[in-house]
Every structure is written in C-alpha cells, then in structure tokens.
C-alpha cells in the first residue's frame, strides 16, 4: 500500500471534498501542512491578518457559496483566536471545518510551547470537535468532519492535528463513506404530521408564515415563494430568514422581533395560526414568551429537534429539512381566503411604515435606498449594530440580492472579513459591506488581505462617532448616561458629555487616509447629495477595496424597538 505523510492525506482529503480555497495562517505547529500546500496548485491559500477574521472569511465564503469553509491555523494563540469566529458560525449554522495545529502527541499535557486544549475550549461552540489520536484514523476523521459540518443542521467542526501525526507515514486511503452510529441526520418529513399541520392551516382565519434562516440554508426560496403564491398566506421573516422571499412580494410584511416592522409584530400577535419554518425562536424574535403569538396555534418545522418546543411550546412539531417539507406541503395546500386578514395587515402596514425619525441630511435609509436602486446582483454583508438593523429593515432582497449577517452571536468585527470571504467565493458578484465605525475597527487589518487578493469590496462605513446601538439603549433606558460609547473621546474630554459635536477632537483614525495607507481607496461623504457619486467612484476601483465613510448623526435611533422582556406588540414607535 502507498505510504504517505499525514499532510499529504490531508491535502488529498481537501481535494476530494471539493475544497478550492483554504483560509490559513501559518505557525510552528502547521508548517508541515503549509509545505504540502506549497507543492500543489489546486487549492488556493488565502492569508488573512488575524485568525478571528480568518474564520469570519471562511464563514462568509461558506454562507455565500453553500460550500464548507475551511480554516487552517496553528495551535495556542492561533487556535484560541478562532474562538469568536467558531461561535459566530455555530450560532448561525454555518458549515466550517477548522483545522488547528497541536503539539506533538507525547508533549500534550506538558504545557508545551503553544499548547492549548482547543477541543476543550470550543466544546460548547462546535458541532463536533476531535483530536486525531493516531495516524491511521486521520482519513476517517477528516471524512467525518466534512460530513458532520455540512449535513443536518450545519455547523463548525474542529479537528486538532498533532504535529507528529501530520508527518507520520501511513495509508493514503480517503474513505468514501461515513458511518457514525451517533449521528444519523434525517431530513425526511413525516407526512402524517404535515397533513395535521395543513389541516390547521385550512381551518385558520388569520394564518401567517414565520420564516427563519433554515429556509435560506436549505435553499428553499423558490419553494417558499410557490407556497405563498399558492396559498395567499402572508409571510414574516426573522432577521436570518430575510431574503428567503422577495422583499417586494405582495404578501411579505417584513421582519419580526426587537426591531421588526409594526405590521409583522402585530401579525404575530393577532394571528390564529403561526406556521413557522426553520427558526429557533430566539429571544430577539419572541420577546416576552407568554405574550408571543398568544392567540395562535403554532406549527414548527425545523431540522433540529432541540429547536422545537425549546423556547416556544408548539402544537404540531415537524422535524424535517425546510426544502423537503415545503415541497411536500405543496401537494396538500390550496388557495386560502385571506382577504379580510390581508386588509387588516395592510392597515397596519400603512399606519406604521418603516421609516427613520429624521429624513434630513445623510441617513442610513438614503444610503440603503441608493443600494436598492443601483445594484441588482450583489451580496450585502453587515457588521453588528444600528447599521445592521437599518440594513435588515430597508434593504430589498430577491434571488440575486442576498444578505449575510451575524445573527445569533451578534459578533462585531464580522462584517468586513465575511465580505472578503463572500467576494472570494463569488468573484462575479458585487460585494458590499455595511459596517459601523466600531465594528470596522475590530477587524480593520483585513484591508491588507483584501488589497493583497485584489478584492474590490465596497465598504459603506456608517461613522456616527459612537457605538450606536449601545448609545441608543442608553438614550432610551439609561437617562442618556452615555457610558463608554463615544469613539471620538480623548483623555481631556468631560467624562459625562452628551456625545460628539463639531467642537470635538478629530476622529481617530482618519479612515480615508488609513484606507490609502493599505493601498485601498477611501472616500468621505458628508452630505446626501454625494451618495451617488461616491458609489460611482467606488465602482471604478476594480483592484482593491474602497471605504466610503459616511459621516452620520449620532442621535438617530433604530425604531420600532421592543425592549427586552416586553411583549412584541409593545413597540417604541417614535422618540
């Protein structure tokens, strides 16, 4: 039998799994693997500038392509830097295989240089984590890692690779099949349960579809649209479910939850049947549980049994893949008379449309409206904060316009690296990153990666000199105690000032100059009149990223807002 080193079998495994890109940061414990990668051309290696960003890049790549994202880092700090990225991917069900170098087997436990128990550290934020204990198990473990990452409810899998095992000779066999007795994900829908659910649907007067991220992950947009067209039942989405149906669809009401639209939150409150697919009823969606859909019977389809009746008790649970379930449903449903219900929903929509408090000057809505008008084939990637909420409120999505955002974990610093990953996986598409001045600086070093890879990502940086989302909470619930949210503050400032003004010290850093120092482009926009020309300028730069820094009002709030713990219908609508 052919004897090869572990590194060689690893590269073979990557090729057999169809991996074309690895996001890798070298270090002492993975130099052998990088040497093996040097000797081949089939797999491209991207060098990010920080391992947290590295995982977000693999995440953005995976979310936007549907493929498994592959990370490769060294042990110790390389591995621990991945933690936030792994948690982010875990909460949003993103398939990743994270490979970490580990010290030589016989040194484990000796507190060797760059030894970290990364399996232990990530145990609660990984779908599965495993250390390769013997060279002969390497092929099997890698096969299982890819299989576990991409099947069922997808998620990150960590494989820890001791240095000695990667240079040890052994079989070059890469198994073709997987047999895990403890992991048999089922996607098939139970038709009996489904028929019961459809019967409830038929008997209801005020039904609503609540669609979560599971429908996007399952790639079931076309099926969902068919279902809605056929039944004429209105739809609301969670933040992660946004884009699963064309946001301009006549029956679409917007997002539900903490910053959901008035109509969507009222629809949940007043419906008599909540038909939910692919959501885990996070507290940001439900708010006060006892008041959530209090008049409704609830059907819940999800691939994860543990998501069903975890937060919200449901009447009909159905464990299934969203796509298979909706396809099966199409055979049993028919047009529903929802005329009266739709009229009610239209009234809510008209009485409280999504809007900004202030429509003067440069606003988030104007920028997002411009994006809606200008682009028809793009992926929009957000960071976390106010800009993210405005994006989920105002951005129009359809089959060619997609949104990537960190939902469950709400990871600041996610946006820009994820946009880089999305661009690497979708060279033909326009990638637009929307970020804030806080989150952008959490992974700003990735400008170097984007410049090196010649990625013309447009970064819309909403700079309001504040950590805006926290500031908003302080405005509404902490008597304007603006504690540690001003990003323009200097040592000499009054600790209890009410926020930045024209008299304040200049903002640090100068994002335009900073972009240029990286070899990227930077444009500063201070007036709404300049939005169009700024985008035109940015589109001319096809070799490197462009930061468009929008100087925005710190006092603008994201509304509606439901305070944590309050019922969903208890929305703050204006301030």
């Amino acid at each position, binding site marked *: 039998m052919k004897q090869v080193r572990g590194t060689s079998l690893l590269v073979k495994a990557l090729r057999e799994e169809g991996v074309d890109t690895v996001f890798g940061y070298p270090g002492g414990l993975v130099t052998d693997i990088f040497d093996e990668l040097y000797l081949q051309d089939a797999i491209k290696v991207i060098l990010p500038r920080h391992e947290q960003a590295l995982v977000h890049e693999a995440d953005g790549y995976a979310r936007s392509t549907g493929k498994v994202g592959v990370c490769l880092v060294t042990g110790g700090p390389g591995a621990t830097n991945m933690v936030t990225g792994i948690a982010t991917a875990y909460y949003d069900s993103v398939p990743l295989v994270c490979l970490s170098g580990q010290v030589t087997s016989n040194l484990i436990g000796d507190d060797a240089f760059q030894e970290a128990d990364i*399996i*232990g550290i990530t*145990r*609660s934020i990984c779908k599965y984590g495993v250390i390769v204990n013997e060279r002969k198990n390497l092929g099997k473990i890698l096969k299982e890692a890819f299989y576990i990452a991409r099947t069922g409810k997808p998620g990150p899998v960590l494989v820890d690779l001791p240095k000695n095992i990667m240079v040890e000779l052994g079989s070059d066999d890469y198994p073709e099949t997987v047999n*895990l007795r*403890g992991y048999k994900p089922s996607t098939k829908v139970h038709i009996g349960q489904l028929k019961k659910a459809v019967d409830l649907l038929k008997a209801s007067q005020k039904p609503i579809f609540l669609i979560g991220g599971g429908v996007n992950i399952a790639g079931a947009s076309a099926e969902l649209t068919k279902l809605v067209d056929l039944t004429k039942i209105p739809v609301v989405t969670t933040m992660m479910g946004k884009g699963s149906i064309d946001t301009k669809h006549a029956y679409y009401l917007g997002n539900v939850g903490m910053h959901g639209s008035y109509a969507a939150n009222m629809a949940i409150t007043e419906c008599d049947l909540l038909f939910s697919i692919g959501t885990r009823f996070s507290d940001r969606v439900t708010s006060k549980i006892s008041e959530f859909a209090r008049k409704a019977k609830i059907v819940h389809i999800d691939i994860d*049994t*543990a998501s069903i*009746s975890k937060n919200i008790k449901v009447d009909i649970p159905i464990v299934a893949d969203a796509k298979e379930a909706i396809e099966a449903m199409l055979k049993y449903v028919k047009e529903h008379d929802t005329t009266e219900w739709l009229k009610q929903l239209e009234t809510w929509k008209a009485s409280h449309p999504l809007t900004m408090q202030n429509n003067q000057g440069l606003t988030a809505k104007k920028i997002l409206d411009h994006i809606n008008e200008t682009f028809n084939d793009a992926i929009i990637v957000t960071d976390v904060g106010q800009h993210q909420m405005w994006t989920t409120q105002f951005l129009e999505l359809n089959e060619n316009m997609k949104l990537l955002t960190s939902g469950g974990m709400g990871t600041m610093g996610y946006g820009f690296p994820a946009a880089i990953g999305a661009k690497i996986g979708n060279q033909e598409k326009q990638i637009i990153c929307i970020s804030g001045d806080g989150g952008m600086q959490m992974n700003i070093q990735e400008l170097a990666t984007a410049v090196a890879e010649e990625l013309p990502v447009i970064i819309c940086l909403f700079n309001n000199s504040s950590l805006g989302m926290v500031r908003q909470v302080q405005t509404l619930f902490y008597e304007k105690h603006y504690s540690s949210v001003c990003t323009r503050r200097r040592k000499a400032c009054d600790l209890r000032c009410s926020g930045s003004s024209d008299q304040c010290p200049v903002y640090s850093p100068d994002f335009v100059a900073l972009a240029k120092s990286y070899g990227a482009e930077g444009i500063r926009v201070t007036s709404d009149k300049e939005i169009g020309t700024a985008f035109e300028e940015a589109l001319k730069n096809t070799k490197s990223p462009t930061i468009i820094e929008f100087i925005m009002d710190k006092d603008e709030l994201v509304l509606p807002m439901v305070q944590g713990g309050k019922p969903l219908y208890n929305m703050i609508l204006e301030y």
Partner: protein
Amino acid sequence: MEKRWISLFVENDIGVLAKISGLFAGKAYNLESLTVGMTEDETVSRMTIRLKSDDETFEQIKKQLNRCVEVIKVIDFTNSPIHMKELLFVKIRKCSKGDMEELYRIAEVFGVSIIDYDPESVLMECVQTESKNNDLINLLSSDFKTIEVVRGGSVAIESISKTEW
C-alpha cells in the same frame, strides 16, 4: 421539579465525559449524579445520570443529549422497570464497645457487609438503592459522631421481567 433518570450510551472516547458534563454545566441543567463505565463493547460507555428538572427542561435535555455526535442512545429510565443500585462505603470511627455492637446490628438489619474493622472502627460496604443508602447515612450520622461517607452514584439496567423496580 422532579427526579429523573437517564441511561446514556456514548462513544468510549477522550473528552466525551467532559462533553456531557459540560452540556449540563453550560446550559444550567441540574445534574445530581453521573456514573460512567465501559460496556460489553469496549468502544461504548454507558452513563447513568440522575437529574432534577421540570417536564419541559427534561425534554430539552434529552434532545440536547441526542444531538451530540458522541451520543449513541438516550434512554429515559424515569418510569421504566429497572434495577438500580449504588455502592456506598461508610467508615465509623471512635466507637465504644456498645457502638460496635449497635453497628453490627444495623449491618444485619440493613443487609450491609462489614468488610474491615479494628477495635474502634468499622467499615461498611452497602450496595442498595440510593434511598436506602440515604436512610443508612441518616441513621448513622444521628447515632455516631465520626463517620466518613463515599458513594459511587447509581448504576441502572432494565429489568428482564419488566415488573420489578
């Protein structure tokens, strides 16, 4: 909140115990005792877990356990006919002659073996249900000053006859 029992078949691999106990700790589930040992198949370990929870949390715990790749099977023992025993050692020291006599009587009544002793001390070995072990400990701690207790946590297996507990 009720007492529940789970029998759990898991892969006999490194870190699986940490995974299961970590799941209970991380999600604030109320774990009361956990025993683990290899089965007739050396690649499989079997855990007996005692916990306290309400009905909803218990359902969630079983689902979360099932979701672990390393978990092969989850069996709810709460209402099944099972045999369940716990190993208990009690060492009683500084005994008078009268104490010694009393201890031998207790041992006889409770069906406990005395497996070691010296003129002032007795070591009892007790394989009983958890509640009988509790009774014994309560009795001994009220009557004797210096006792040392070590208990192993319960192990359980399904009955053959399906009638006996």
